[in-house]
């Protein structure tokens, strides 16, 4: 505890001071009646405020910041509609385990429960989508609640926390004699060495092991440790959407993404494995397909920092509640070096028999070609944000990611509208790294108002808008699973995105008019600041392979015919 000066100050200025003590230097949000005291205090603080155009945008900006820094980040909203607008971004953070703290204004305490103007029970509404939430009842409580919120958001499996602060609590003046210590992540739980020994033995005895790694590995900073394990014991590595980037694309042990839009060979190799080493994953149905048929012959080692994930979907033979990095550090000395020539040659054989097909990879006017061309022109120092849809899956399939956490995508909730604000947050939190935001016309429209924020903040965000005139992934499902009954998945009205972007004051180019798309991308990327690149996608093309929802991963549709060219990335 550091002693305060002891003079009276408002709850709002206490709140701001507590944020500063947590190391918060930037917050996103929108003011309104119930959080005006907080904004008044913020005005004179050292914290940079990013005024967004929608509270969901503020939530995703905070997510973008949190995903690149790995530390809890804050966003602000007023009561009522401001508060309800935050919920999607909070739910998204819950499912992807992102530490964000939402501070909402609330009507004054005496008016709570009276249906006052702009009163909603955001405490009740946010309950199922937060890791924890608080309704602050007195100004004194702020001193406890704020550090506690940061501790909870950062500890164990990170997640969102909401703090609802009534206006009178912000306004009331109290003396602070002692400032609390900033909230920090709890230490990790003690390791179960016996279980780890057992895991090592299983790995040493396995004949056909596969590593299955997810967001927990990236978040724990354990990607290189996982690579060491893979290389020492010759274990191929499959990744979830959230785990991508942990292993370089061209690595011999890389199996890419598994599951619904994974490569055929990836899902086939998993089907043959006899040991599944699952690190920081939660056996999401998009990854496992029909869970009863997922890795049918495999014993399972499951390591997760959240004990609630163990045995939730699949019962593990060895389950360990641990941070992935700590687990790997303890495990490694017990793992024998193995060449596994037989297994690796089988893996190579399956890769050769069922390669990943990327039709149009050499044509920058087709979806895969465009993503690969953009990746080439952006270079390695880049963060990549996506929205949700076909463009997202294609990016996940082929973007040459080189580091964990480099891909910012809405994995668990699959929220259209995530991309642009998350990209802005990433660009503001790490100004030296440009952000490529791969988006679709459906998704971009969900938070298009944040173009104004990007321009105002000079965020170095390059939006690659793959415009297929509708909701591509929905169209694909209707075509494949609903007798091609295309309904409500195509836009009959055409929006001029280049003019829209320019109207927001953003640079914009149209690849439709570019004679050399690669050069046009190069020029757009070389200009600092935000830019929108409009890329019309002429022919509707499905993303393959695809596991039909509810089917086993081995029942993939498409992606096997040789008329398409193999990936050149």
């Amino acid at each position, binding site marked *: 505890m550091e002693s305060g000066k002891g003079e009276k100050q408002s709850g709002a200025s206490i709140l701001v001071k507590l944020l500063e003590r947590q190391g918060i230097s930037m917050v996103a949000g929108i003011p309104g009646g119930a959080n005006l005291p907080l904004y008044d205090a913020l005005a004179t603080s050292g914290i940079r405020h990013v005024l967004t155009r929608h509270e969901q945008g503020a939530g995703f900006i905070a997510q973008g910041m949190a995903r690149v820094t790995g530390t809890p980040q804050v966003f602000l909203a007023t009561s009522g509609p401001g508060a309800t607008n935050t919920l999607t971004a909070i739910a998204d953070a819950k499912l992807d385990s992102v530490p964000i703290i939402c501070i909402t204004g609330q009507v004054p305490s005496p008016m709570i429960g009276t249906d006052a103007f702009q009163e909603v029970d955001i*405490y*009740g509404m946010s*309950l199922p989508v937060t890791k*924890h*939430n608080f*309704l602050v009842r007195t100004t004194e409580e702020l001193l406890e609640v704020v550090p506690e919120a940061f501790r909870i958001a950062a500890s164990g499996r990170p997640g969102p926390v909401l703090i609802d602060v009534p206006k009178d609590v912000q306004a009331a003046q109290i003396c602070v004699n002692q400032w609390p210590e900033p909230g920090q992540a709890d230490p990790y739980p003690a390791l179960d060495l016996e279980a780890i020994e057992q895991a090592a033995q299983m790995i040493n005895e396995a004949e056909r092991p596969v590593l299955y790694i997810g967001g927990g590995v990236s978040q724990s900073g354990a990607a290189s440790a996982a690579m060491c394990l893979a290389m020492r014991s010759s274990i191929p590595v499959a990744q979830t959407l959230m785990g991508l980037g942990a292993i370089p694309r061209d690595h011999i042990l890389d199996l890419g993404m598994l599951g619904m839009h994974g490569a055929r060979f990836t899902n086939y190799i998993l089907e043959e494995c006899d040991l599944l080493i699952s690190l920081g994953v939660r056996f999401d149905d998009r990854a496992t397909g029909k869970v009863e048929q997922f890795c049918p012959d495999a014993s399972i080692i499951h390591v997760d920092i*959240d*004990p609630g994930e*163990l*045995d939730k979907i699949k019962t593990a033979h060895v389950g360990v509640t641990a941070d992935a990095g700590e687990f790997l550090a303890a495990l490694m000395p017990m793992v024998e070096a193995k060449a596994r020539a037989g297994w690796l040659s089988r893996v190579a054989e399956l890769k050769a028999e069922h390669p990943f097909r990327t039709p149009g990879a050499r044509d920058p006017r087709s979806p895969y070609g465009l993503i690969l061309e953009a990746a080439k022109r952006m270079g390695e120092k880049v963060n990549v944000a996506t929205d949700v849809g076909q463009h997202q899956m294609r990016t996940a399939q082929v973007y040459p990611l080189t580091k964990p956490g480099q891909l910012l995508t809405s994995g668990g909730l699959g929220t259209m509208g995530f991309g642009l604000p998350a990209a802005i947050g990433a660009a503001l939190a790490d100004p030296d790294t440009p952000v490529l935001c791969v988006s679709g016309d459906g998704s971009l429209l969900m938070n298009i108002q944040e173009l104004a924020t990007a321009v105002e903040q000079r965020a170095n965000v390059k939006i690659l808008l793959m415009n297929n005139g509708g909701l591509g992934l929905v169209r694909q499902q209707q075509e494949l699973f609903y007798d091609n009954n295309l309904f409500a998945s195509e836009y009959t009205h055409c929006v001029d995105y280049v003019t829209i972007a320019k109207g927001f004051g953003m640079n914009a180019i149209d690849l439709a008019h570019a004679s050399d798309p690669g050069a046009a991308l190069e020029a757009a990327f070389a200009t600092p600041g935000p830019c929108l690149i409009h890329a019309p996608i002429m022919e509707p093309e499905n993303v393959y392979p695809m596991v039909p929802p509810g089917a086993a991963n081995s029942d993939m549709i498409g992606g096997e015919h040789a008329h398409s060219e193999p990936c050149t990335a």
Partner: protein
Amino acid sequence: MPTANPAPHKEDQTAMVQLELTVRNHPGVMSHVCGLFSRRAYNMEGILCMPVQPGLSRMWLLVPEDDRLKQVVTQVSKLHDVLSVERRGAGSDDFQQLEAFFRQPAEAV
């Protein structure tokens, strides 16, 4: 209208188990616990909550003993305001004793 023969409380044959939670006593804690059960689609047959000392309450939950119980106990234990979760022994019949009280007024109507 009283029925001639009150139906047994538990219609199905699932065995019940009693969980004892020690929780921080504040106005949101009930929502946190009940919300968790409802959103994980896990039934709760009975609930009883009383303060035990300043700042602390005890909650008894009567829940079906099925395959998902372990998962639900893990999830409940993760709640910030839940300080401990214990399974009451097989012999604990607190809810059965209470059942008599609960049925009385209905019979009297």
